């Protein structure tokens, strides 16, 4: 890939230009020049150019690969389009949306998905924070703990899900007889619990890894100073660590929630959606790939996307300036 070589080299060079631009392009010695708002000084223009230049490769790749597929599925969602009846294809506006939103299966799946998302993300945040602290601060066997803790995330999801299914199936698994009720994967409540357990086991390391990298940014001196001043462990955690980690927490929560809401693999393997355990992504998949009803399937995709977008919006608003790209988030 020739794309690789050039931006790779440019990266370092660009970094240097960025930091130098302050000193170099400023005709006036005042370095803080760009903080005030003189309309487009030479300095400012250089900063803009550099900003665009640095973002261009990433933006280009993302837009080139996804623009057409995304627009195409939005377009499909506005049509009656069932591959089994191709000649009935026509533009029907928002009719698909009405169909989906008045369908009780959709709302059942929506409830299941929301429940799984809220429960797993909440538990994962707490567990992930604990795990991150252990991985970051442990005195013994740090490499082993970190690696072992990350293995669940590294295992191919489908295989992990199969191993859970095996474990919970009576006759083949070591967990099936843990509760004497019979086959846990054939009842709704226990199925959902197992799905959530599998999700939590699998993705807590994702949370923990991001949080651990956030912990690495907390200055040791600050912690020492706080403890000399008599701060308790809990105070050090809430007053010193959490503020520094805020951006990391946002990213971890945001991306974990987005993923959790699109839960698919685990349910697919564990229950195949039986006993009303389908998630919204499973419904979309069943319509798109199995049912070949492209119109309805795309509508569901767009609805999932809109829901996730609302969640993301709320998170970003809640975290305010800790969110990437917010204007006043720039350091001092």
């Amino acid at each position, binding site marked *: *890939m020739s794309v*690789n070589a050039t*931006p790779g080299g440019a*990266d370092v060079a*660009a970094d240097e230009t*960025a*930091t130098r631009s302050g000193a170099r392009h400023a005709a006036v010695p005042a370095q803080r020049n*760009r903080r005030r708002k003189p309309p487009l000084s030479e300095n*400012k223009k250089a900063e*803009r150019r550099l*900003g665009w230049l*640095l973002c261009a490769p*990433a933006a280009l*790749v*993302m*837009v080139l*690969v*996804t623009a057409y*597929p*995304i627009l195409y*599925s939005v377009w499909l969602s506005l049509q009656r389009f069932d591959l089994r009846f191709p000649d009935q294809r026509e533009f029907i506006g928002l009719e698909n949306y009405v169909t989906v939103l008045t369908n009780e299966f959709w709302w059942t799946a929506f409830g299941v998905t929301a429940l799984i998302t809220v429960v797993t993300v909440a538990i994962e945040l707490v567990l992930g924070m604990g795990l991150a602290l*252990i991985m970051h601060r*442990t005195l*013994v066997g740090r490499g*082993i*703990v970190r690696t072992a803790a*990350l*293995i*669940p995330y*590294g*295992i*191919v999801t*489908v295989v*992990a899900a199969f*191993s859970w299914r*095996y474990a919970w199936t009576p006759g*083949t*698994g*070591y967990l099936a007889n843990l509760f004497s009720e019979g086959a846990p994967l054939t009842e709704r409540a226990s199925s959902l619990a197992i799905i959530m357990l599998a999700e939590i*086991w699998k993705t807590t390391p*994702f949370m923990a*890894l*991001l949080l*651990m*990298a956030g*912990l*690495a940014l907390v*200055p*040791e001196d*600050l912690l020492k100073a706080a403890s000399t001043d008599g701060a308790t462990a809990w105070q050090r955690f809430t007053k010193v660590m959490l503020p520094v980690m805020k*951006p*990391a927490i*946002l*990213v971890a929560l*945001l*991306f974990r929630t987005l993923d959790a809401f699109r839960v698919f693999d685990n349910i697919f393997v564990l229950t195949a959606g039986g006993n009303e355990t389908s998630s919204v992504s499973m419904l*979309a998949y069943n319509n798109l790939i199995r049912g070949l009803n492209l119109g309805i399937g795309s509508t569901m995709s767009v609805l999932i996307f809109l829901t996730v977008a609302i969640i993301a919006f709320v998170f970003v608003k809640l975290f305010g300036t*800790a969110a990437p*790209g917010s204007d006043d*988030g720039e350091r001092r």
Partner: protein
Amino acid sequence: MAVETTTRAKLRWGLLDVVVVVFALIPVLWIASLSFKTPATLTDGRFWPREWTLDNYRTIFATDQFVRALVNSIGIALIATVIAVVLGAMAAYAISRLDFPGKRLLVGVSLLIAMFPQVSLVSPLFDIERQLGLFDTWPGLILPYITFALPLAIYTLSAFFKQIPWDLEKAAKMDGATQGQAFRRVIAPLAAPGLFTTAILVFIFCWNDFLFAISLTSTERSRTVPVALSFFTGESQFEDPTGAICAAAVVITIPIILFVLFFQRRIVSGLTSGAVKG
């Protein structure tokens, strides 16, 4: 006295470590155990195999199908990881450090891409790749992987870049360091935890992807391991491939372990002394 407390602290940490390792590894051991079971005892419901066999491992290495898939997976995941982290770092640097119009748009659009259900993007992508001749090639998988890893990379990296005290660089230069030295000695160590965290996450994402891999490949030229697994069958069609799949799962977890082992030691606090903040 100091010695005593550290011993006790070590014990406590050791105990916590054990809890974590057990929590993480029991299901993994279960998969490994299945991979060593004979077909007859596969479904006996015991945690440890009664009879040990290496047959499952022989099966997966009997043809070069699995090895080819392994090579494809490693190559594709490594290339995609390097490119995604480099492009992501460039964009994240700009987002967290520079002021330019369109910044919020970029952040918003990349999140939008991360949010769209991938199931519905697969078939249009398939059409495009067929027309461009990218179908069933390495770049045909690398490009979507970069694309869908970039939002996470950009978000993670800009979150970390934002927390780096960049003034330190100025201070270093004032103390006589050159631009290069200031970058290498001061900024790079601070940025490393974020970079390596991102690299690990992106690598695992590419490594585990099933959806794109099954839709955008058709031969062993570019088929990756998760897809190859799904094509496993037993010796005869009546034989359950579970044992072989588990053996393959064990084998493909090893590169992940090596990758994480290698990179996790870079995720340490870069801010141990002298960082003046707040």
